[in-house]
């Protein structure tokens, strides 16, 4: 007999070694997330996937599922906090959706739609971040980086390189490039690397591919992020 956990009153099975997020995805339950991608080691930093496990806040993407856990994923409180955390990410960087090539395909934006976010709530930091357009094929706009660490993990785990790293402390956190000059053009990155395509926002873009799909016809223009995420992350979704 398989072991089970309960999410919002629904009993679902899990395999030993799975996190709450893994079990939820398998059961076709969406828990909002940005730094998590099932193809990579869980990171647990964005805190969007915070759920209540037996009354205690835990990150679903890193917390192991254990028999009998009573988990709350959908509540007004959690939804409100998730919205606030998303707003924090918006004010920390410089996100101007209407002028961003990623608009409509951006997970940060998709999550914001899903959480019914209509304003930034918090004061902006207006931080001064640079762009790195040095590479012939790949552009980095640090203004849009949310420190999900996915490019770092993709480069290490899938590309077996070490192109990206997180540096700085606290609010001075920043994404750095592993090259002598610090520029992307001098790094080991290749256009076909997973790391070049993993960014959930518009921080890492491929040059000369912009605006091929008109705004209005893009992913989150048409579908909510819960549907999109489950379709991608759950093999049995929709069956």
């Amino acid at each position, binding site marked *: 007999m398989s072991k089970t956990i309960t999410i919002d009153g629904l009993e679902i099975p899990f395999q030993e070694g799975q996190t709450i997020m893994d079990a939820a995805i398998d059961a076709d339950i969406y828990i909002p997330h940005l730094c998590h991608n099932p193809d990579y080691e*869980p990171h647990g930093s964005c805190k969007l996937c915070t759920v209540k496990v037996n009354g205690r806040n835990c990150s679903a993407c890193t917390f192991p599922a254990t028999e009998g856990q009573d988990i709350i994923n959908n509540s007004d409180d959690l939804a409100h906090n998730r919205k606030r955390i998303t707003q924090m990410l918006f004010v920390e960087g410089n996100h101007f959706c209407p002028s961003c090539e990623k608009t409509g395909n951006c997970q940060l934006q998709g999550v914001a739609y899903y959480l019914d976010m209509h304003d930034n709530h918090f*004061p902006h930091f207006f931080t001064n971040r640079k762009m790195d357009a040095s590479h012939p094929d790949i552009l980095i706009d640090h203004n849009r980086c949310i420190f999900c660490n996915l490019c770092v993990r993709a480069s290490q785990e899938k590309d077996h390189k070490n192109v990206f790293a997180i540096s700085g402390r606290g609010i001075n*956190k920043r994404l750095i490039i592993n090259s002598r000059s610090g520029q992307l053009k001098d790094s080991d990155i290749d256009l076909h690397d997973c790391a070049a395509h993993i960014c959930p926002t518009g921080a890492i873009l491929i040059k000369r591919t912009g605006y091929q799909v008109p705004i209005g016809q893009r992913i989150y223009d048409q579908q909510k992020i819960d549907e999109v995420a489950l379709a991608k992350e759950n093999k049995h979704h929709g069956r």
Partner: protein
Amino acid sequence: MQTFTQSTIDKHKASPVQLLQILRDIQAEYQHISAEAIEMVATALNIARTQIISVIEFYSFLHASPTGKYDLLISDSITDHMLGKQNLMTYFASQLNVSIGELRADGLVSLNNTSCSGMCDQGPAGLVNGYALTHLDRQRIDAIAQLIEQQIPIKQWPAEFFTVNDNIYQTDLLLQEPIESGAALKARYQRGLTETLTEIDISGLRGRGGAGFKTAMKWRFCSEEAETERYVVCNADEGEPGTFKDRVLLNSYAHQVFEGMTVCASIIGATQGFLYLRGEYLHLYDKLENILQERRSSGLLGNNILHQDFNFDIEIRLGCGAYICGEESALIESLEGKRGIPRNRPPYPVAQGYLHKPTVVNNVETFLAAAKITVQGGQWFADVGTEQSQGTKILSVSGDCARPGIYEYPFGVTVEQVLDDCGALDVLGIQVGGPSGTFIDKQEIQRKLAFEDLATGGSFIIFNQSRNILDIVKNFTHFFAHESCGFCTPCRVGTSLLKKQLDKITDGYGSAGDVVALEELCQLVKNNSHCGLGQTAANPILSTLERYPEFYQQQLKDISYEPGFDLDASLATARRLANRDDAGAHLTQVGED
């Protein structure tokens, strides 16, 4: 450059876990770590240059661009402020002709702030090239400025500038009589492994860092892990502002602390231990190394300890200025030569700690107590204190009192008793447990220091009626924003937002709704952050907001909305560009009738 850098790399066996120690050496020699040095270390240690850059940017005492040949850091602890730090800092800057946070053009001197340096009982305090300076005053600053201008090496400066006193005023079970070196280890082997652990269990000893996990349970969990390579770590990264007891314990009771670690190692089966010493206590380093050497010579450390076929050694690793490294999993990351980012838990360090091997991390005071319990037996300790908090607690008392220093009491002592003993008059309130603890009002002095009531890692800062509560809260809130590691969103962005929102209110730009917004933000940061730093960063605001809401409300303007900046002042540039200064070129924020 190459010869020195190569020699420090060699000294540390080109081991990646020694990265912080290597970078400390290079920083001390060249006042920064150059791009060239980064490349050299990366190649020698076979790690990515980005790991080195990220470590340099993470720790306050490491720099990629040069600091002064004399690098002065002045402690920013609230207690230093209460002793006139701000004035002294300005005076220092003017005497040395250097701006705060900058390097003087000739490269001779740099001056900056640093988080609490652990000298709250003898401030205003600071650090020069990492070495602790105490009792700073104008006279001393004049002398220091002169020594610097004459480029006198620090080793030749007057010794009294660097004098650090213990200031022990109240002793009890632990401080009264240190054990004789080796006594705990002998008792441990006479009694046996299980029996010794049982005594630790009977004693009821709980972790003295503040969290209060049962020590015997931690040691047992670690010893039961399947993996047999295990480690003992002593957490001497005492960064909580207002705490300095570990400094005293390591200065005067180090033998007993090391003995506690050794007893632990013999129980859990470890062969290697580490003392993670905060960088601010560099002045203790040589002394502690000598004590370790002494212990090796007397057969209490090293190979075949007490002829029991037991091998264990202790290595001292210095931190580089990061409060977060007091969190045990961040400390372990730091020990491994990385940025101090708290790990996801589970797994806990007892299962997967240093190098992902089972590791016991305990506070300095915990090891000190464990050593004596091993000699005296568990009941001796359990007889003292309260039901859930056995034994004694060593407090670091500072702030407005006649005798700031170290006080040891049985758990359950009232706040009032401590205030009486240290000579505190005209008390306004007390910060118990440091900024991450609780601010209590003078009405609450009957409350008890114990896990049942006011849990504390030992910081006890007293404020008299002349102090402004919002100044205190501001200092603490800025501290957390500065020390947030930046890993998780709620703490990284949240602590900076807390700082902005609090400053908006205290600077007089707050309006109706801003206190409510502040409180909401506090709850968000508290409930969603990854580790204890973020979970407690809002405590200074929350605990004072609960007790003194009127102080916050009084700061608010009597209008429904006020921008978080001076509207008219922001137009100054525009006025200058337009060459106008007439009434129409000014804006005023009008209050509601």
